[in-house]
């Protein structure tokens, strides 16, 4: 797995639309990203201006998506306080406050770290104490880092190291702390619904608050903490948060793909990096394809891995995935179907632990048979797509999208717009079938 590659030459860099900041500087050993992702060629550092949200902010992805991003106030009050950019009042969105706050000074009285292993245990304990679900450390590698600039989508991330290139940053700040929070499993069952959105957005806000707090704490310890420098997935794979699945998401051991990995912290605090894990995602995703089958926009490939930007992985078509959003914004914010149907998305309980442990202990040649058996169990008991009816707060996924009804027993309020006692029976949630409308998202030109 370890091999040496040279930095890309200028013409290779140009073909990807990203800039190689330091041509001619050789990369160190190729990072170990586990079994699902292999670095096979020269990697061009991604320019943050080429990421989906910045492209959309400039209007490069078409009017519909631009207007959805900039000018849409959500109809759902909970989305208005928890989702980026769809608030009626931006002061109601906590992440705006945490991520745009000025940064504190590094404490000049540095806490001496004699044993990096003890400090690693401490930082992980701190993150879990604040409510994180997974905290692991990656050894920084220039290939994870953005090309020189900072990712500023969610806030102000300028710092005095902005002029350093990826190689120099990885040398001076050799560790990346990846902190994740898991989405609520029960609420996620109502994906393509505001209940699923709540599961997604609220844990995202929490993760941003935890990261802000841990970032401040590392400065209090007397060390530098940089944000907006590293690709969370690269760092997450190297840290062993999970393995990259067919759906383009990092699939974790305890929670599957239902995790948030907001902008990780790059630091010079002496730590002990973790290793990538093997939970059988490589074999599972070769066989399963549940996410590809159910994706409403056909953005997930049915084919094998491809080499993109020097990295062999399952490549999703992010543009078609993203382009769905303005058309469904009245009914939900985030689709989340590929996460909900993933067989790794299960409650974090003993039978899940047992299954994942069995899968990772199983020798690789015997895994396909085990995976086929597990997929059969998953299809049989959880279904090809989740259609469970979820009721939470005033929401009810049993009500058809676009219709309003109050289905709460005992509610005596007079509802003007909603059918006060609309009869909705059964335990099957409304699942908007979008597959037949797929072509408009795939073929349409902007």
């Amino acid at each position, binding site marked *: 797995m370890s091999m040496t590659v040279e930095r890309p030459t200028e013409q290779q860099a140009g073909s990807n639309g990203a800039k190689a900041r330091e041509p001619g500087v050789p990369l160190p050993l190729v990072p170990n990203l586990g079994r699902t992702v292999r670095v096979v060629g020269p990697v061009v550092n991604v320019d943050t201006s080429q990421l989906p949200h910045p492209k959309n902010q400039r209007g490069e992805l078409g009017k519909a998506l631009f207007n959805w991003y900039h000018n849409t106030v959500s109809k759902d*009050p*909970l989305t*208005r306080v928890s989702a980026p950019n769809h608030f009626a009042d931006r002061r109601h969105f906590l992440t705006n406050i945490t991520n745009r706050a000025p940064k504190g000074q590094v404490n000049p009285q540095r806490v001496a770290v004699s044993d990096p292993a*003890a400090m690693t245990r*401490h930082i992980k304990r701190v993150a879990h*104490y604040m409510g994180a679900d997974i905290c692991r450390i990656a050894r920084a590698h220039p290939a994870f880092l953005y090309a020189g600039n900072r990712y500023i989508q969610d806030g102000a991330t300028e710092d005095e190291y902005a002029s350093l290139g990826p190689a120099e940053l990885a040398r001076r700040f050799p560790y990346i702390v990846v902190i994740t929070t898991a989405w609520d499993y029960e609420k996620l069952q109502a994906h393509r619904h505001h209940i699923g959105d709540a599961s997604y957005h609220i844990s995202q806000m929490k993760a941003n608050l935890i990261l802000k707090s841990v970032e401040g*704490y590392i400065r209090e310890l007397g060390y530098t903490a940089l944000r907006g420098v590293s690709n969370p997935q690269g760092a997450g794979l190297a840290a062993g948060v999970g393995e990259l699945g067919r759906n383009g998401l990092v699939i974790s051991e305890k929670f599957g793909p239902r995790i948030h990995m907001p902008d990780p912290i790059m630091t010079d605090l002496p730590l002990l990096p973790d290793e990538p894990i093997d939970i059988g995602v490589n074999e599972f995703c070769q066989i399963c394809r549940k996410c590809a089958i159910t994706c409403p926009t056909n953005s997930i490939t049915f084919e094998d891995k491809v080499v993109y930007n020097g990295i062999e992985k399952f490549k999703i078509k992010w543009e078609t995935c993203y382009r769905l959003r303005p058309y469904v914004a009245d009914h939900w914010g985030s689709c989340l179907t590929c996460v909900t149907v993933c067989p790794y998305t299960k409650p974090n309980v003993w039978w899940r632990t047992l299954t994942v442990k069995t899968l990772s202990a199983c020798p690789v040649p015997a895994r396909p048979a085990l995976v086929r058996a597990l997929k059969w169990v998953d299809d049989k008991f959880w279904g090809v797509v989740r259609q469970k009816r979820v009721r939470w707060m005033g929401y009810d996924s049993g009500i058809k999208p676009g219709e309003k009804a109050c289905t709460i027993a005992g509610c005596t309020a007079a509802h003007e717009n909603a059918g006060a006692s609309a009869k909705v029976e059964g335990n099957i949630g409304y699942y908007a079938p979008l597959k037949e409308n797929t072509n408009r998202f795939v073929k349409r030109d902007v």
Partner: protein
Amino acid sequence: MSKVALRLGPITLPWLGKPADDPYWDFFLHTPPHDVQNSAVDLVRKAPEGAINPAQEEIHSPEINARHIKELAVFLGAKLVGIAALDPTAPDTPEGYPFAIVNVVRAEHDPRETPGIGGQVPVQNGLYVTFVLSAYIRELGFRATAKRPADGVRLAAAAGLGTVDAQGRLVTPQYGAKVYVADIVFTDLPLAPDRSSRG
């Protein structure tokens, strides 16, 4: 019942899984931040309050509203939630807010005695709940403000969450005194108040 049995989490034995030797934990709990901007608590508390949405959402009856607000607070991380009706004649009651939503989070260490970033984690967790909850109510089109009154513990007792001990701490049946009463969300959203544990 079978479903409940299937959902049992991992078995944890209380004498196992004790934290390994951690020489930095004391610093985490007790050393106040050198620069307050490194504290997330400070920046969330100082954040300005947003405007009340002029388009009021359709709401349910007060009992149902109270249930929904509690469901949201618990989802945000509150361990106990209670609603107290405020006495409009009392001198320190903020005007125009008939109800107080009291959120209680776990606190292994009393934040008043542990000024470090770690010691303030219960405050951070509490602020997360009260910030989002009050913003949500304002987005519903009702008045809501998260404040830190002197009598927060008394309001928690009035909301039926526990009793006040001699040191002025809230003692709850579920978690004892290892709790922290978060900022109080004052609101005029129609809610059904909880009965005080004494009444």
